[in-house]
């Protein structure tokens, strides 16, 4: 199965900007550990994944009655904002959650990707 993993809130990991360079380095190692563990695990593959720019760099595009409007800032008025994502192939949710434990303690939303062909 394919899953979209959204790193949606800082959670216990805390704010990246507030970290010392050393702390940031330690957090980066967790991403590397996650990547390495995924590579080793049978049936698991990271298909894509990026860190995203902050809320002040986001743009929302809406189409109303055929007219496109762009607005500055993120969608929805939530405090937490999407900081990054992964697209991961994994045999099941438990395997994925097991591996995600290696990441910094973000709040994470996991959505199965729907296979339109099936």
């Amino acid at each position, binding site marked *: *199965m394919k*899953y979209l993993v959204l790193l949606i809130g800082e959670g216990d990991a805390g704010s990246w900007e507030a970290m010392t360079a050393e702390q940031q380095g330690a957090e980066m190692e967790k991403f590397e550990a996650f990547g390495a563990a995924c590579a080793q695990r049978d049936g698991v593959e990271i298909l894509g994944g990026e860190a995203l720019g902050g809320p002040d760099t986001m743009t929302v595009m809406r189409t109303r009655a055929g007219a496109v409007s762009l607005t500055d800032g993120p969608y929805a008025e939530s405090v937490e904002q999407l900081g990054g994502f992964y697209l991961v192939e*994994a*045999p*099941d*949710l*438990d*395997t994925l*959650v*097991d591996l995600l*434990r290696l990441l910094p303690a973000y709040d994470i939303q*996991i*959505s*199965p990707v729907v296979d339109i062909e*099936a």
Partner: protein
Amino acid sequence: MTPDRMTPRPYAAALQDVVRDDWGRLAAVLTGQFRRLDLVEDALGDAAEAAARRWPSDGLPERPAAWLLTVARRRILDQLRAEAMAARRHPLLVTDAEHRAERSGVMADPGDLIDDDRLRLVLLCTHPALGTEGAAALALRLVLGVSTHDIARLFLVSEPTMAARITRAKKKIVACGLPFGIPSATALPERLEAMAATAYLAFTAGYAPASGDALLRADLSGEAIRLVRVGLSLRPNEPVLVALLALMLLQHSRRDARLDAAGDLVLLPDQDRTRWHATEIDEAVALLTSPALRGPITQQTALYAVQARIAAEHALAPTSPATRWTRIVALYDVLLDLGAGPSAALARAVAVAEAAGPAAGLAALATVTLPGHRPHAARGEFLARLGDHQGARAAYEEAVALCDNDVERRHLRARVR
């Protein structure tokens, strides 16, 4: 299968027995084979219906559980073929998938396959991604074979609502790929705790006094106990399950004494102790001395164990006045240190009143933040004991106004007088 002269009733009873005893095992076998929990429940339901229809004329099969399994398996295969046709795939793929599932299941587990499958099924139905309410309903339906109709009545919702809740849980299992597997060593303790929490939710839904069918609700608590027993039969020394079973048994042992003949609530001190189930109390007390609870235990396990020890104090007191209230107060202190909620604080205040008098009880009550009628009822009781009958009446009236449970309100009204 020789037709004999059994009346329809024994066939129904035989079917009831096999549903009660074998449903979870059959569901586990089928889920293990096909990995399609969403099809398993319907297929077993169809098989049970077919049995009700055919056993009276065909005779009771020699192995009723195997009969149900065969029929259910055929239903699932039909369904899979229909799906494959709809998707314009070659029907052979289905048989292929089936063989693969069978092979991989056998190869992955050289041990006791059936028991492992049952544990997988229980863990799947109580997966935290499902939410406890959906999980509790699904576990009752699939592991214990309780009908959707009965589960709906037990949780006080309509049958279509409950059917929708169960369907949603089944769909989520398939859609988000919850595995039919044993969790990793890191995740297993958390998963067993989720399983315990699910069973306890089902248990308390039955245990809360409610208007309506008291007998049926005691039944739900009994089913929740069975769910924990299924877990324990597979992991006999799991601390969270040991502690939870002890707690449930002690609370459940008083079920026959909690309501009088008119269906009115009987409080603990006034209960007829000869109507408590002594074998259940004995089993629970033995569980509390289990080595499983002597090592380091999690917070959730400790919460269950301490509550069970409090219940055991009541259960073992020969009479109500002989209750060791000082000990109970001390246990409530431990419980509150563990992070128990305001209802534990209220129970502690009641114990304080028994141990040190109603004035001390009132003082302890002052810090209780529990909403609802119960703190007012306790205040009324303490004030009455202090001789402040006017204050007591006012407190009871406040309690009556806030109470939304018929049985309890009747009980409180009797106190206002």
